[in-house]
Structures are given as structure tokens and as C-alpha cells.
């Protein structure tokens, strides 16, 4: 027991208490000393205790006890209520040891809690998908890929996981064992707020999990594409047919002699000037260029192209022999380290390559990229890298060594062909929308009561963000001046609307964000909490090993205890006078 006298009992008050105490004790002596020594002693002691308590209460003195008791906390709380263990740990000044029941806390919560030596043993996790995620927003035509790991520790059998579309039909299905990763895919048919369902069943048909998979599907504006090629190509011709039939504007410039081009405009209004100049390139979102053309660009053209890319243009280079054989590759491609594969290695790499989920063999140039050339956007099923992109300023440059993509179309794989190009366009083409929401992956930890960050990409700071029709503040990112972020704490499960507006009130972008209740995706959240808590426990054990001697932990006695004792002792004294 330690008493902290640092807190304030004034000297006058102390003197008054001492005088009062002395006077009381004097009277006790006169009254009882002669009668009974024992009674006198008892009353004297009670008086002293009472005055001490009074002094403690009046002076707000803190009496500490050594804190070597163990807290027992339950981290599982009813829905929509703050986690009691989390609150308790936050309120504890510095608990020495705690025993944690339930599934534990998230990493973000542990980051806020101080160091605690935890006894933690997680209960069994409910069967279901864990570490699941899917895109928050898709563009119409883009494929939804929902991935996760199937968790059913109690079973050794094979379970069935399904993705159910909004009409209630099975869109994708897979059979998995405990611990196996799965991916379920479908292409949403409409825009708006779309809710799929994830359903898992065992062999007997019993439903093990039934959760919702909400996402937003948007329409994106069609791209404006410039194709510059050294010779007519079946590849670009097929791409042109697909893109133009689906609303894209294209200009195809085909070199027919040294200084002459055949210019084809499809769905394109307005004049197109000759040459590669910044003002010409600014009209387009994506430029597709073969290697031969690019290697023939002079320095002026390359500088113009580089400037346009810096300003947001996307460039897709369809690599060819001419590019590989050119003595000096353009500076814009130097970072890719594109090099021809040696004749010896070619023997192993000339086999047709296959792309994921496309049952068709393709050929590819015998070329390879340097390590860490950029982000891989095309990869064969055997792991060979076929396409790499790099960000250059606001734009991107991508290089692909894949050839004969048109064969997908010719073999009737129209859907795969369109999705291939849609993905490529989406990755490389300029985003004309100056202000928009950054897209995140959805995870079940987006729950009620937890902070959620939303970011905006914008070149302008004159923006207003509305959360459920109420304005909220944005703060500029320290690392990216074009990024503004905000934190929101959803209080209700369900859809929430974020609207991005300019200062005139015009809506620039709308995001529908879904917040899960604590009853949804329980297996995933349980798994996440257990993993985060185990990581925390491991970290704490390492810290304890480093600092063997812990300082003495103290904990203040509560105020109500003082009041209780004072009442009891004062009552005894009053009763004694009545005797």
C-alpha cells in the first residue's frame, strides 16, 4: 500500500482536521479512559481511521495498492456494443497481466492498447471463409473475383463454396478442403449496388456459411485510342473492330511508306493533326504502338510522347522483332530491360503460352524483362512474364511480348478477348475523371464501430465530401499531394453513400460503401482477430524477454471504498455513544 500525498490537502484544512481530531480524542479520553481501557482504545482507533478517511476524501489523496492481480477479460461482446475487453484494457493504466477470453482484438486495437502480458487461447473458429476480399467497385464488364481461404477445421471432407448472383442463381462454384484457397468469379450484368452471396455447404447439403458480398458496379466512359503501326496488323485490326463496336473512338495510323500514313478514324470527331506532338497525344487516352514504329521515333517525337505520358497518356507497346533488334531502345523503355532470350534458352521458351482461364495457346516473342521492371500485368500460366507496366508521371507505359491475341476472337472466345482488352485499357489508359474515389478491397473487417478510411484522388483541393448527405472533412496526404483522405465511423450496418462534389455542388463521383454488422462474416472476423492477437502476444513475449525486470505496478484504490469505510466507522462511533 502506498499513499501519494502529492495531491492537494491545504495546510489550513490539515490543521483544522488535526485540531478537530485532537479535540475528539481528548473527549474520548475524558469519557472512556477511566471506564474501560479496551473501549477507549477501540474508540480512539476508530476516530483516527475516520479522520484519516476524511482527510483522504477532502484532500483527494490517492492510496495505491500493488497491482499484481490478473484481469480476466472477454473480447466477445454483443453486436453494436463497444468491445468490453478493448475498453477495459484502454482504461487500465498499465495492467501487468491479463487473461483474454474470446477471439481477441484487431491489430488496430492492439496498437492503441499498451503492453500487456496476455494469456490467450482462442476458441474454435466458426466454419466459413477467412481472409476473404473482393473489389469495392467494378466497372461494368469487369470480372468479380472473390478470393479467400476455406476454414472448416472440424471437417476433413470436401465442402462446396458458391457465389450466388443477385437473382439467386449460382454464378460460380468450387470444392475445397479446410485451409485451401479459392477464387469465385462472375461478371456483374448491371450497374448500381450489387449484392452477391457466398454460400458454403458440406457434402450433406447443410449450409455452413451464408454471407453477403456487396459491391458497386459503375459505368466507365469509353477510351480514345491512337494506334500507330509500321504496317497493317491483324492484331490491331481486330482490336479496332472490338473497341469501335463498343463505343471507343479510334484513330489508326498505318505507315504505308517512309513518310506516309494511312489514317483511319472510327467514331472519332474532329481533326487529327499529323505527327507525334503533345497536343495530338493529349486528345487520346491510350496509344498503342508497335515496336518498329517506336524504335523509328526521333528524339523530338520521343520527347513529345514522354511529355504526354507524364500528363496521363497510357502507352502500350506491342513488342516485335524490330524493337528487339534495334541497337538502342527508346529511353522510355530502358527501365523495362527488354532483351532477347538467348538461342539456348529459346528452345525452352518457344512453346505456346497459355493465359489464365483462356484455353488457347498463344505465341510470344522470345524476349524477357529485367527483374523489377515494373508491375506484371500479363503472365502466362507457366509463370512467364509477358507484360509489364510502369507508372511515368500521371501516365503509364506497358510493354507486352504476347502476340496473336486476335486468335481469341477468331476462336469464338469473344468474352475472353473483350475482357483481356478491357483489363489492359483499364490498367493503362488515362483516367479522364480528375476527381474520383480510390478503390479499395472489401474485407469483412469493415464493421460497424470501426474507423474506415476513404481516399480521393484529385488534382483540385476545392472539393466537398458528403457522407450520408452530411459534409465531412478531408485531409491531404503527406506522401501524395493528389490524395485526400478521411476517416468515418459507421454507426449502422448497410450501405452508406459518399458523394464527391465540387464547390459548385456538381457531383463528381459517388461511392457506395457497405458496412457489415458484427453478425456477418463471423468466421472471417474471428480468424482475423485471433491472428492479430496471436501476433500481439508473440510481440509482447519478445519484449518481456528483452526487459526482464518489470517496474512495480501500482493501482489506485477507488473513491467509493473511502466513502463506504467512513460511513461504516462513523456509524460504529455513533452507536457507541448510544450505549
Amino acid at each position, binding site marked *: 500500500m502506498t499513499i501519494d500525498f502529492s495531491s492537494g490537502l491545504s495546510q489550513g484544512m490539515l490543521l483544522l482536521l488535526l485540531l478537530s481530531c485532537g479535540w475528539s480524542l481528548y473527549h474520548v479520553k475524558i469519557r472512556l479512559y477511566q471506564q474501560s481501557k479496551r473501549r477507549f482504545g477501540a474508540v480512539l482507533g476508530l476516530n483516527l481511521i475516520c479522520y484519516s478517511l476524511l482527510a483522504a476524501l477532502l484532500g483527494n489523496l490517492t492510496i495505491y495498492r500493488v497491482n499484481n492481480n490478473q484481469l480476466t477479460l472477454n473480447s466477445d461482446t454483443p453486436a453494436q456494443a463497444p468491445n468490453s475487453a478493448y475498453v477495459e484494457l484502454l482504461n487500465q493504466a498499465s495492467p501487468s497481466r491479463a487473461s483474454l477470453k474470446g477471439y481477441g482484438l484487431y491489430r488496430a486495437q492492439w496498437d492503441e492498447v499498451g503492453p500487456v502480458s496476455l494469456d490467450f487461447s482462442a476458441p474454435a473458429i466458426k466454419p466459413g471463409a477467412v481472409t476473404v476480399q473482393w473489389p469495392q467497385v467494378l466497372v*461494368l*464488364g*469487369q470480372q468479380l473475383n472473390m478470393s479467400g481461404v476455406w476454414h472448416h477445421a472440424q471437417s476433413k471432407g470436401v465442402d462446396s463454396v458458391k457465389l450466388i*448472383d*443477385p*437473382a439467386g*442463381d449460382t454464378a460460380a462454384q468450387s470444392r475445397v478442403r479446410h485451409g485451401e484457397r479459392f477464387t469465385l468469379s462472375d*461478371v*456483374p*450484368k*448491371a*450497374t*448500381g449496388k450489387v449484392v452477391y452471396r457466398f454460400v458454403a455447404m458440406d457434402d450433406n447439403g447443410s449450409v455452413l456459411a451464408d454471407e453477403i458480398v456487396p459491391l458497386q458496379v459503375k459505368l*466507365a*466512359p469509353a477510351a480514345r*485510342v491512337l494506334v500507330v503501326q509500321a504496317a*497493317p496488323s*491483324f492484331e490491331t485490326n481486330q482490336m479496332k*473492330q472490338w*473497341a469501335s*463496336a*463498343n*463505343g*471507343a473512338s479510334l484513330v489508326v495510323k*498505318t505507315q*504505308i*511508306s517512309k513518310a*506516309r500514313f494511312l*489514317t*483511319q*478514324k*472510327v*467514331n472519332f470527331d474532329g481533326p487529327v493533326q499529323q505527327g507525334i506532338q503533345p497536343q495530338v497525344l493529349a486528345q487520346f*487516352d491510350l496509344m498503342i504502338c508497335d515496336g518498329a514504329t517506336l524504335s523509328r521515333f526521333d528524339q523530338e517525337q520521343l520527347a513529345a510522347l514522354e511529355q504526354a505520358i507524364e500528363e496521363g497518356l497510357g502507352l502500350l507497346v506491342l513488342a516485335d522483332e524490330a524493337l528487339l533488334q534495334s541497337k538502342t531502345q527508346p529511353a522510355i523503355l530502358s527501365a523495362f530491360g527488354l532483351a532477347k532470350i538467348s538461342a539456348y534458352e529459346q528452345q525452352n521458351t518457344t512453346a505456346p503460352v497459355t493465359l489464365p482461364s483462356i484455353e*488457347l495457346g498463344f505465341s510470344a516473342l522470345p524476349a524477357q524483362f529485367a527483374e523489377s521492371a515494373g*508491375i506484371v500485368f500479363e503472365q502466362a500460366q507457366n509463370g512467364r512474364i509477358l507484360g509489364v507496366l510502369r*507508372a511515368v508521371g*500521371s501516365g*503509364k507505359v506497358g510493354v507486352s511480348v504476347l502476340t496473336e491475341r486476335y*486468335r481469341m476472337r477468331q*476462336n*469464338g472466345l*469473344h*468474352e475472353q*478477348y*473483350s*475482357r483481356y482488352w*478491357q*483489363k489492359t*485499357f*483499364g*490498367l493503362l*489508359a*488515362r*483516367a479522364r475523371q480528375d476527381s474520383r474515389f480510390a*478503390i*479499395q478491397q472489401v474485407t469483412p473487417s469493415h464493421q460497424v464501430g470501426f474507423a474506415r478510411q476513404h481516399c480521393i484522388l484529385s488534382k483540385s483541393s476545392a472539393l466537398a465530401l458528403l457522407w450520408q448527405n452530411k459534409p465531412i472533412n478531408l485531409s491531404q496526404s503527406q*506522401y*501524395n499531394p493528389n490524395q485526400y483522405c478521411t476517416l468515418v465511423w459507421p454507426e449502422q450496418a448497410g450501405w452508406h453513400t459518399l458523394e464527391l462534389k465540387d464547390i459548385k455542388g456538381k457531383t463528381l463521383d459517388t461511392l*457506395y460503401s457497405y458496412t457489415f454488422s458484427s453478425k456477418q462474416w463471423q468466421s472471417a472476423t474471428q480468424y482475423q482477430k485471433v491472428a492479430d492477437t496471436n501476433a500481439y502476444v508473440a510481440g509482447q513475449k519478445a519484449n518481456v524477454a528483452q526487459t526482464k525486470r518489470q517496474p512495480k505496478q501500482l493501482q489506485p484504490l477507488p473513491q467509493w471504498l473511502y466513502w463506504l469505510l467512513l460511513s461504516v466507522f462513523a456509524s460504529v462511533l455513533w452507536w457507541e455513544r448510544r450505549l
Partner: protein
Amino acid sequence: MISHAQGILARYAKLGLQGLLIERLCLFAAITLCFIALSRSVPSLIWLWLSCAAGLIVWQVIWPLWYRAGQYRPLAIAEHFNSQIGMLEHSAHLLLSDAELNVLQRIQREKIAKVMVTAEQQGLLKQAMPSIRYKKALLWLAAGIALLLSHAWFEHQQRFVVESPDRLEQQQPLALLSMSIEVFPPRYTGLSPQTHTKADIQVVEGAKVRWHLRFSDNSKRYRIMLGDKALELAYQGDDQSFVAEKVVDTTGLYSIASDGQQLPGIYSLSVIKDKSPKVRLLEPRQSFIEIEKSGSTEFTVKATVEEDYGVKQVQILASLAKGSGEAVKFRDSRFEFDKVSLEQTKTIYHKHWDLKSLGMESGDEIYFTVIATDNKPGGGQQGRSNTVIVRWLDDEPEIVLADGVQLNYMPEYYRSQRQIIIETEQLIADKSSLEVVRFNQLSVELGQAQGDLKLRYGQYLGNESEFEPTGANTQHEDEHEHQQGEEKDEPFIASQEQVLERFTHHHEDVLIGETSIHNPRSMMKKALGNMWQAELHLLLSEPQKALPFAREADRYLKLAKQAQRIYVKRLGFEPPPVSLERRLTGELKDIPKRKVEQTEVRLDDKAQVVFRQGFRVLSELSLQDTLTSEQRQSLEKAKSTLTEMANKRPGLIRYAAIAQRILTSNATALSQCENCAAQLQQKLWQLLDSSRGMPNQGWQPYFDEDAMAKQYLQQVEILNGAAQ
């Protein structure tokens, strides 16, 4: 005397107490009346009125009664008279004293008793009594009564106003009390009449529907609004109901209106169309039979017919072809079946053929199809089987043989793929000038022709079911038309290669994989796949949708034919021919700059666009939201399209009704139908085709994918690790 005087005092005490009681009761009544009046006038403030009334009652009634009651005890009255009447010499209280009085007091009491009687007789006591404020109390009471009366009068006036006919109409909406719907199916169906009590009904095409409706107000005129048309309801005094009847041919929605006022409720009227008979040939199974010159010329035809209500006639329509090429002659004949048998639930029609008895000779051909006519009035509807071609071979070899395998033969009967495309285009162009029935009939005929062609080509590739798309109609019906001198598609080379491969052994051929675009077999498979789709849409009377598939099939057929030449013919840019004079001169000045401008935007199917918009609107609306004008437009279009489609798919009318209900209530929250909006949304999703990839602008979040950002974060993590 003394007792008399005491009685006087007691009487006055009693009178005073009564007066006080009356005075305070009046006040109590006044307060109560005011409270009643105020609480009825402004009920929202009842707690204020209640607390005020309670306070006033305590202050003005209970407390005065408690406090002032003591002033009217006999002793207090005597004291009061002492102070007010001097002749009592302050001794009136002696009259009430029970204690032992001394002599003087007794003398004084007797004296005062006499004075008291005298004062009473003189009216002095009455004058000296404490005043009771009757007037004030009565005034309060009158005020209370007046307030209550004024409130009652105001309420009466209000009631009078509410009960006036005009107001009544606005306040009390008309109500549909009961509904009974009698349905009388057409006689030929053999179905018995039915009575429904639910407003959403399904009836057979041509059925007479009679509505019996009872309303809360019989003095009005009522109409049933069937789409844009109004059906007047006639009042029947017998059962106080309104009756209307109509023969129903089309699926639609209806509602009830009265003198411009729309009654709540949108109901569906689904019409089940009488389907054409479906004829299937059980024997022969092949669509092309060859009989050798010396072979048996007899065979049997077995057919089964599926029909909703009844078959009127089943016949065989046969065409006998004699000669070949330009000299070919046709003769049409109709034949009856020999016998009809019932096997399980199916009726089987049998016919035994003998080619000789038909007057045929070797080298002749006969094409026949089975035609069934149902009992629908107006001539009935017809269904046809596949057309079977029977060829009696002649001595002379008319076919080209290579390695013992038949090549290059296409019977005269078949329409070419090109011809199907031309006729489909013509049908689309003529749509506005054709009646719907005729349009549908022509479309179905083309579908049957497409089906025949598909089967014909399918024979070369083996089992046709290999190419059958999911859900495709497996019934194929043929139309027999003579297309003499018409361009025919040549049999494809794929068959030649495929069949040769089965019986020969090649060492020097270039191996062409299954996935090669040059493989004729692969192209034929694609052509057949497209033919399936074209046939499906034509049979569904959707030639617009069928046309792209038919063209695609034609393209693949041509590619298959050109497959062997494709190795030498390069696709792509072909330079213009250069004259010998200019060759190798290197002069390019005369070559003009070429610019080509095109517009090639494939528009989505209108219904698809409408459904996509409808889904988006429903997904974005919450239950509390009301519809904007743009959202209303989208849902209106979705409803109209669903209604239109419901003529072929009656089940869709339910969803059109939901859309109309949403439009009527201007919100997705519908009373008595919580999940309706969700059901409509689900149906729209089902009706949507799978979406294709689009050439969109960039949409990927660059900060997530940005290599620089990733590298930066990695460096930060490394530095953090090093610092720790």
C-alpha cells in the same frame, strides 16, 4: 332561550359552511370545465392543462375548504358575531360554553341569548355573516360553461363541415369491398369456367373474363383500366355489384378507377397462349434417306403430336421430285395416316410407305413433312415435323466420289444460309407492314429452315447435340418451299477432310491442331453453334437477334470452304496494283494520302439497356426514398418492356405489375409486399445478358498499383525494421 340562541348559532354555522362549499364547488366545476374544453381543443398540451387544473383545484378548492372550514364552526361564528355586533357585548361565545360558568357569566349568557334572538329577528346576524363570494364563483362557472359550449359549438361546426358531401369524398376514399372474377375459357379448350377471388389472374387466350366488384359507394361510376383502354362497369342492383366482361387476348395490367380517381391496386391479367401443335417424327430418325435402286422401297413413318387442347387433323404433306437441275418437277400430295394408336400418354400416328405405289422411279426424290392442325377456331394452328428427304438412287453416278467417300452433295431442298439471311433481313424490313401473327409465322418458318440446314451440316460433324446451347429448343420443324435455281451453299470441305481422316492414313499432311483457326472442323463447329442461336431466336420471333448469329454462321461456313486456300492468301492490307511503268521508280508523289472515317458503334438491345437502367434505379433506392423523375422514367420503360414481353412470357406480367405499383406509390416500400422490389430487381438481373468487356478509360487506382508508391512503402518498412 339559551338553547334557542345556541340553535341560531349552529344554524348560521351550518349556513356558512354550506355557502363555502357551494362557492368552492362552483370554482371546482369551472376549473374542470375549462380543463375539458382546453384539453379537447389542444390535446397535445394535455399535461399542461392537467397540471394547471390540478394546481388550481388545490389552490382554490381544497386549500380554502380545509383552511376556511374552521371559520364556520359555531364557536368561530360566535366570535365573529362578537366582533361584528356590538350589542352582543363580546359574549356570544358564552352560549356555547360547556364549562362551569360563574354567576356573572350565567347572567350574561341569559342576557346575550335574548339579544341573540333579537338580533336574529332584526336580521343583524344575517348581515354580520362572513360574505360568501357566490358571484365570483358563479362568474367562473359561467366562464367555464361558456368555454365548453364554445368548444362544443366549434366541434359541431367542424363536424358539419366534414360531413358535407364534398369533404366526405376527400376524407373517406372509395374502397373496393369485394371482387369476384369469373373466367369462361373458349369452348374449344374444353376447360370449365372458374371463379377467382384474387385480382391477379391467369386465363387462356380468348377467354371471357367477367368481373363482379362491390364498392363502398354505389353512387359512382367505375371503370376497369386495361392499359390505355377503359372498360365501363355496369351497376347491378340485385347484388349491389358492378359488372364488366371482356374477351382477353393479350397479357396486361389493369386497375380500377372512378370518375378520375384511381383506386389503389394494380392487378395482372396473364394470358396463356394456345401453343401450336408440336410434331415429332419417331421414325425415320434420319432426315436424309437413300434407297438403293434394288433396295426395299418400303418404310414406315411414325409421328407423335403434342397439343394443349386438341388436334383436329394430322396429315403428311409430300412433294415428289422428278428429274434434276433445271428439269426438276415437283408434285405435291397430302396423305392421311393409316392408323392411330395410344402408347402410354402419347398418341402415335402410323403410315406405311411404298415408293412404287406413289409412282416413283429410281432417281426420284420425295420430301415429306407431317403437319398437325389444332382445334383453335379460325382454321387452327399448324405444327410441322422435320422434313425427311428420301432419295431412290439411280444407276448413273450423280455424285463425285473420292476414295470411296461422297463429296459435294447438297440436296435441292435446303435453303442456303445466305438465303436465310436475306429473308431474315427482308422480314425485319417488312415488320411494320406485317401483322404480328404473320410476322411470327414467317420468323418461325425461317427458324425451321435454319434448323434444317443446321441438322444437315450437323450430320457431317456427328452428334448434333454436341453443339446445342443450354436451353435451346430441341424441336425443329421444317418448311417445304421450292427454291428452284437458288444459290446453294456447297457442302463444306471439312466433311471431306474429316471423313477421309477416318478411313485413310496420312503421313505428309501438316498437323493442324484443334484450336487452329484454319481447321475447317473447328469453323464448322462455330458455324453450327451460331446456327443454333439463329434458329432459337427465329423460333422466338426475334429475327433482329437471330441475324447476327446467322451472319456469323455464314461467315464461318465461307471460312471453312476457303480453309485450304487460306495458307496462300494473306489477310490484311493489300497494296494497290502498280503499273509496270512505275514499278521500282521510287516515286511516291502520286500516292494520295488516304483517310478513312467510320462509325461503328454496336448498340445494345433496347430491352437490355432498359433492364440495366431499371436494375440500377432499384439498387440505388432505399425504402425511404421517393422516385426522381429520371428514376420514374427508367422504371416506366422497364414496366413497358416487361408488359410487352409478357405477351410471350405471361409470367413477366407479375413483375410489370410490381413496377407499376412502385410507380404508383412513388417508392420501393410497398404495402403488403415487402420483397416485391427485390423480386423485380432479381428478375431484371435474370433477364440481362452477361456483360462484355468494354474499352473503358483508365479506372485502376494508381496509388494502389503505383510501383513508386509500393517501393516507397517497402523502403519505409525496411527503415523501420532497421531502426528497431
